[in-house]
């Protein structure tokens, strides 16, 4: 069996007075794509933010490479090898594509620049808009920039939040191709509402409902489980 890279156990998160996460558990195994599924407002985004330390956990453990990273500041978590592509993409609107990449690059040595070339080959569109302001990119281009930025270092783990949101089918196809390529060298936790996409690239799934894990297993089992899909995803 493949090694567990990330193990989230009984995660609780409060935002202000709201108890948003109330027991999220799942694990991501090395080299796999783990998909978090659940309806709108279930707590998928908050789960990723909590892993990144952006909305700190109030209870539970987040084991990354067997170390609890729950109390670490966000930048330490990022530097330990976790890349994050947020739901809103988090593009720096007044910075160009090039500058957006530069902010993400910890060094500008030959190795990093070569890595950047490799990442840009995954998203050729970005080269065309290299000097364009991030705020002026299309939704698909922003998504690609956000993924390229998170992948410009050899992350051990990538957290990607709804990359297909609001994109045209042809652009979704490009994003999926890129994720498939990224998967070859990293582990991915993907939040994805588009079940077609999720089922094609996901290895395992975790169903989150009302801030807690309700089901988990292999993606191929979920594809056949009409009842689960109807109950928690409203499909089928």
């Amino acid at each position, binding site marked *: 069996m493949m090694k567990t890279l990330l193990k989230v156990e009984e995660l609780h998160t409060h935002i202000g007075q709201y108890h948003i996460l109330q027991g999220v558990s799942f694990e991501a195994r090395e080299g796999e794509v783990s998909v978090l599924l659940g309806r709108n407002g279930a707590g998928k985004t908050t789960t990723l933010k909590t892993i990144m330390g*952006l909305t700190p956990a109030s209870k539970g453990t987040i084991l990354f490479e067997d170390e609890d990273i729950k109390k670490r500041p966000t*930048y330490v978590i990022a530097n330990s090898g976790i890349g994050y592509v947020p739901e809103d993409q*988090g593009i720096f*609107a*007044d*910075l160009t594509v090039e500058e957006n990449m530069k902010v993400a690059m910890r060094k500008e040595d030959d190795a990093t620049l070569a890595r950047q070339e490799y990442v840009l080959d995954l998203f050729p569109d970005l080269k065309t808009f290299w000097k364009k302001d991030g705020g002026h990119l299309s939704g698909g281009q922003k998504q690609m920039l956000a993924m390229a930025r998170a992948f410009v270092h050899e992350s051990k783990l990538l957290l990607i939040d709804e990359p297909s949101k609001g994109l045209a089918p042809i652009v979704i196809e490009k994003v999926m191709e890129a994720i498939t390529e990224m998967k070859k060298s990293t582990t991915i936790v993907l939040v994805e509402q588009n079940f077609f996409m999720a089922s094609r690239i996901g290895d395992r799934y975790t169903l989150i409902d009302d801030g807690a894990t309700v089901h988990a297993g292999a993606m191929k089992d979920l594809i056949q489980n009409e009842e689960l899909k109807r109950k928690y995803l409203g499909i089928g």
Partner: protein
Amino acid sequence: MELLINLTINGLATGMLIFLLASGLTLIFGLMSVLNFAHGGLFAWGAYSGVWFYSLTGSFFLGILGAILTGAILGFITEKLIITPVYGNHVQQILITLGFMLVLTEMLKVVWGPNQIAAKVPPYLAGSYEFGDVLIIKYRLFIIFVGFLIFGIFQYMLQKTKIGLVVRAGVMNKEMVQALGINIKRVFLYVFMTGAALAALGGVLFAPYSGVIYAEMGFEFAILAFIVVVIGGMGSFSGSLSAAILVGLAGSYMAYYVPALSLAVNMMLMAIVLIFRPQGLFTAKG
């Protein structure tokens, strides 16, 4: 004509001093949403320490360097001791920085005494230039020159260096900057120290301009600087220059033509901006 030119030079010089305060304030606010009401205290400390270094060494240039250094050190202490414990809480920030402003002011009196201190223009910057029949005071031109120089240097750094990019990115989205592996608190400490150094530079430049320095000198400038931050757009460095010049000029013209309104005019400018363009006059985006 001579009058108009001199009012303009005057307004520009005042504008530059306000800019030196406001540019730091705007980045401090833009980056970490920190309201620093102690900024005027750093201005006064810059004036006192600068005049002191100047009298000690006989060199105005060393006086300026001494002020900048003092500002940076005070900035370091302020950020570590005063600001760090109150991140994210505006009410506490206002209270504690206002309190610290008073402490800074009283400390000045402890160190240098309660009385006003005279400050002289260095000989090589004293006197006026004659342009035809227009006399222009050299020192004011010097302030304007330094103001533009500082603007140029920092604009270059913000646009062209990695740390500058990180600061601009942080103003736009500080969560994302951290998620990309950057220790934003450290960046903020640097920005805070730089802002404090610029405020101190403003103070030491203001000293010979006004001729005397006194412990409370920072209050009025700090208020003008806050107005400038609002007009220029919180977090906008170039906006703070334009707004500072606007406020400086408006103050200078009004003081001559409609003296009764000279204090109110900047408040009115700010109110108008808040009503019609709350994101600031010079920011392209909200």
